[in-house]
C-alpha cells in the first residue's frame, strides 16, 4: 500500500519520565495498514526549524471498543528538536504523519519461540510485534534493558500479553545489573541448539551488534530494526544507508528506509 500523509490529531500524550513519553495519534488508515516493525515520518511543527521529518517506529496500534484500528502510538525519547516537540505535544494538536513505511518484522508461528531484545527506546517496535505473536500463540520472551528501573516501561502491557520478561538495568535498580545482551546470551546457551528460536532486536547499535553475534554463534536467525538519520523515508535521499553483504559477500550500502528498518542481522556489516 502506498504511504498516506495524514494531519493526525494528538489524542493523548502520556509522559513516562523526564525524557520519555507515549504519543497517541488519530490515524485510522495508517493503523489499519501498519505491520509490526514499520515506521512513520513525523513533522510535529510546521515551518523550517526543524525542517525535515523524523522516523519513529509504530509502538502500539490503538483500537476502539469494537476492535477497529483508530490510531497509533509512538514511544518517544527526547534527543533533539523534533523529539522535544513530540514530548511537548498537546492533545488536539495536529502532526503530519506519513506512513506506514518500510519493511516489517517477519513474525513466526508456533512451535517457534520469539525472543525480543530491546535496549532503551528500542522497545518501540515490540509492543505491536508482541501482540501479533501473542495472537498466533507464539511463546515470547522480552529481554529488556535500560539505564535504571524508572526507564523500564510498559512491563504490565507485556505481562498481560503473556510475554516472559528478563530485565536488566545498568545501575542494578531493577532486574539484573548490566547489559541486556548478557542474560540473552546466557539463556540462549542454556537451550538445546535444536530449539527453534527467532531473535528480534532493536536498540543501540552496539547492543544490536552484540545480539547479532550471539544469535549467529548459536545458529539462530535474527531480525534487527536499525535506526539511521533519514531525510525522506521513501528512498529518495540515500541518507539512511547500512552496509550489507550480498550473496557473494560483497558489501553494499543499502537504504534502511526501503530495505529495512528490519534487516537480517547476519547480512549487516557490523563495525
Amino acid at each position: 500500500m502506498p504511504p498516506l500523509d495524514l494531519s493526525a490529531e494528538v489524542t493523548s500524550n502520556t509522559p513516562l519520565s523526564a525524557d520519555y513519553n507515549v504519543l497517541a495519534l488519530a490515524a485510522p488508515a495508517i493503523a489499519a495498514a501498519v505491520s509490526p516493525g514499520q515506521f512513520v515520518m513525523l513533522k510535529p511543527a510546521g515551518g523550517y526549524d526543524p525542517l525535515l521529518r523524523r522516523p519513529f517506529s509504530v509502538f502500539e496500534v490503538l483500537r476502539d471498543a469494537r476492535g477497529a484500528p483508530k490510531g497509533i502510538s509512538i514511544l518517544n525519547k527526547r534527543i533533539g528538536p523534533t523529539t522535544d516537540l513530540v514530548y511537548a505535544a498537546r492533545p488536539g494538536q495536529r502532526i503530519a504523519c506519513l506512513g506506514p513505511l518500510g519493511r516489517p518484522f517477519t513474525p513466526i508461528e508456533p512451535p517457534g519461540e520469539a525472543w525480543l531484545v530491546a535496549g532503551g527506546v528500542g522497545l518501540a517496535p515490540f509492543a505491536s510485534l508482541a501482540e501479533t505473536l501473542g495472537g498466533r500463540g507464539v511463546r515470547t520472551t522480552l529481554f529488556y534493558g535500560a539505564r535504571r528501573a524508572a526507564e523500564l516501561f510498559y512491563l504490565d502491557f507485556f505481562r498481560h500479553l503473556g510475554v516472559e520478561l528478563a530485565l536488566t538495568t545498568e545501575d542494578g535498580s531493577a532486574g539484573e545489573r548490566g547489559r541486556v545482551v548478557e542474560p540473552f546470551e546466557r539463556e540462549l546457551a542454556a537451550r538445546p541448539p535444536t530449539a527453534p528460536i527467532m531473535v528480534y532486536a532493536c536498540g543501540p547499535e552496539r547492543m544490536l551488534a552484540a545480539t547479532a553475534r550471539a544469535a549467529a554463534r548459536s545458529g539462530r536467525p535474527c531480525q534487527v530494526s536499525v535506526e539511521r538519520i533519514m531525510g525522506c523515508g521513501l528512498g529518495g535521499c540515500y541518507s539512511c544507508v547500512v552496509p550489507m553483504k550480498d550473496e557473494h559477500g560483497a558489501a553494499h550500502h543499502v537504504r534502511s528506509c526501503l530495505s529495512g528498518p528490519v534487516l537480517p542481522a547476519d547480512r549487516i556489516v557490523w563495525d
Partner: protein
Amino acid sequence: MDLSVRIGSLTLHNPLVAASGCFGYGVEYADVIDLASLGAVAVKGLFLAEREGHPAPRIVETPAGMLNAIGLQGIGVRRFVAEKLPELRARRATVIVNICGSTLDEYVELARILSDADGVGALELNISCPNIKEGGIQFGCSLNGTFDVVSAVRKVTTLPVMPKLTPNVTSVASFARAAEEAGADAVSLVNTFLAMAIDVETRRPKLSNIVGGLSGPAIRPIAVRMVYECHQAVKIPIVGMGGIADARDALEFMIAGAAAVQVGTASFVDPFIWSKLLDGIRDYMQRHRIERVADLVGTVDTTEQDKEWISS
C-alpha cells in the same frame, strides 16, 4: 492556461522537475505519486560504474536547511538503463538523466549510452557535486573545464544538454556563458553550497565526509540572485533551484529568470508537494491573468522606482 515550458528540444508539460539526488531513480516514488504529473524527473547522478558513496551519517539538519554528503552512491548507467528506465517509460515520466564522470571520456561514454537508450528526455551534466573529489567538480570550477565537457558531450548527442552549475564560484554567470558558448541547450543551477557542521561536545564533524552541501530554504535568496544574474548573461533556458518549498518560491525563481524549476529538499518533507505547487502556480496565473507560464520567465521589474518620498 498553458503550463508548458521548453528546455532545448524538450517540452515539459509543466515547469516542475524533481531534483537530481533528491528523488532516487524516480521509480521509488512510482506508487506514491503519478510520475507523469511532473514536468520531469531528474534522476540521481550516474557514473559509468556502480558506486557505494560515503558511510553514514550522510545528512545533518541545519537552520532552515540540511547538509548532505552522500558521495554519489549509484547503480551505474548500464543497470539504470536495464532496470530503471523501462519502469520510468511505463509510467510515462519525462526523464532527465544526471551524469557524472571523472574524465571527459566518461561523460562522452555516458552520453553515448544514454543517447541510444529509449526514454531519455535530456542530459544534465553534473559538474558541481561538492562531496566527491574525483568527479565533476573539477570541470564545474573551471571555465575551460565547463566549456570542454559541454562541447565534448554536445558532439555525441542530439539530446538536450544541460550542465548543472555549482554556486561555489565567484561568478556563476560566467560559467553559464561558458556553457552557452559550448553549445549547451540550458543550464541548471544551483547545486548545493559547500558547508560544514560540527558537534561541539565531541568536536567531531557531523558528517562522515567532514563537509557537505547545504540545501533547503536557507539558500533560496542566494540561488534566486544567481538565477537572476545568469538570466542577464545567457539566452538559453535556465532551470532554477535552491530551497523551493512552495508555489511562491517557484514563481520567484521563474520571475528571476528560470524557465523551469527543480525541487529537492522540500519533497523529502512533503512527497505530495507537486500538486500543491501546481495548484499555487495556476492560482497565481489566474489572479494575474497570465495565459502562458513561459511569459512569466525573467519578468522581474527592476525599473527605477519613484523613491523621492523616501528622502523628502
